[in-house]
């Protein structure tokens, strides 16, 4: 895998999300773009950088919450305000913890 291939995948993810033909495509495009960008950073960047597990963990976490929003879109206000909003907030300590772990390794 080369940086060009990763950036090409990122471009595909951006394009899929930019043209909102279908919500599912938008969610998958977001996940693809984030995974491609973090994979590029993990493979070709300097420290601090994420580990492979953190790359896929980040992309999966974001994809889970965005797909959850699609599934729960009829459940107002419980779906978004009581479930998905706090889930997004809970990602902050997760990502910060991963960054700190990566820094110690670097």
């Amino acid at each position, binding site marked *: 895998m*080369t*940086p*060009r291939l990763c*950036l*090409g995948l*990122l*471009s*595909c*993810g*951006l*394009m899929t*999300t*930019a*043209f*909102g*033909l*279908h*919500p599912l495509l*938008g*969610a998958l*495009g*977001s996940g693809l*773009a*984030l995974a491609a*960008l*973090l994979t*590029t*950073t993990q493979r*070709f*960047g*300097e*420290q*601090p*950088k*994420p580990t492979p597990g953190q790359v896929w963990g*980040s992309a999966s976490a*974001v994809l889970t919450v*965005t797909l959850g*929003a*699609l599934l*729960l*879109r*009829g*459940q*107002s*206000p419980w779906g*978004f*305000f009581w479930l998905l909003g706090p889930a*997004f*907030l*809970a*990602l*902050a300590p997760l*990502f*910060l913890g*991963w*960054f*700190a772990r*990566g*820094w110690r390794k670097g």
Partner: protein
Amino acid sequence: MSSGAWLLLLLGVALALAFLRRLSAPGFFAANHRASALLAGLAGTAMGLSAFVFVGGPALTAQVGSGALWIILPAPLTAVLQCWVLGGWILSQQPRVLSIPELLGRRLGSGVRLVASALLACGCLAGLAVQGKAVAVLASGLWGGDGTLWAFAVLFATVAYMAAGGMRAGLVVDAVQGGLMGLVALILAAAALVHAREAVGQVLLHPTPLLSSFGQVAPAQAFSWYLLFTLGTLAQPHYLQKFLLLRSRHELRSFPWVLTASLMVVLAVWLGLGLASLALVQRGDLPTGLGDAVIPQLLRQLGPWAVTAAALGVLAAIMSTVASFCNLLAAAVAYDLPQALGKAPWPLGWARGLTVLGGLLGTWIGVSSDRSVAVLGLLGWGFFTACLLPAVLGARFGATCAPAIAAGMVAGAVSCVVLELLRPSFPWPVEPGLFGAAVGLGVVTVAGWRRSRS
């Protein structure tokens, strides 16, 4: 009165800092690279968050419901993402760079630096227009009087110390403003939610389409906002500027913590004012169809103290962002353009003049525009994402050659503008900023691949 006193106090402190020692280019454009993580983090948050957070965002939430919150949902991720993807790279440059076009030019040559500085100057003018428009809307709604006069008064107070002391003065003032914004944001959010507690309770307990996962925003549009404001933080020059100010790579260790905490504290105002105004509009306590003016109306209901507090917070947000854009604009024109053309950078006197001139022009464009603060803000953010994301990532990962990067930047900017013009004719939601970035990255990838084969 208190807003005027605040302006004068900041002006005095900043001018004192500006004239404390003789300035050089590193001092004017990058505060001599001496900022700690705390100072640069607070200043960076103040520079990054603007009137859009205090006015446009909450007003958008009142109009379209929770769909608008997808713009701020990237907040838990963006600081870590910036430090992972770009922070280590920018801070490993030796000697340290003073501007983003210089960073790109060092890797890819003067052609890329030339294109980057020209596009960055255009984008900074658009950014200044958003701030000018926001002051005009808020001033006429909150403080009374002519909004245009207020816009130019705030601009002059800011450019006075930025022209005199550049980022050396701006860093300290921006950090103070960042702290003040956080305090005001928490107080206003809490007060608004307490004031509207019954109405908020009603909308939070009973089903309403506005508080579904996407509100009145199409789900695909919400996802495109989410991605635009996640990856867009890697391409906003006023977001990247904070890395130029940091004193060393070691400061990166605590940087994302400062950035994330301060960002989430300030964004409380978006959630608090947005939810309260949405609930009050639903109950009929605030009129519908006010657009951006719904927030000044809500603040007036909270009382005179809230208007004063909001004035301080909003002035801090606007002045810090204006300061950053003026400085970036001056760097692009007086420092980068001449060097990209093989000449010596212009003397600091020219940079000072450009700080004033750029600020004036941007404010004039903003107060002359009929578009809402939210729309102008999205346009400015999208433009930077479209033209700078391909360049920054292409240069960061050494993925391609200079002509491909320059072509990617231009293709991204043009695609973004063209799609923005064609947007009303599309039957489904499209996001010009993301589209431009995708086209730009596509050009960078394909051109780099063809060159490597040949």
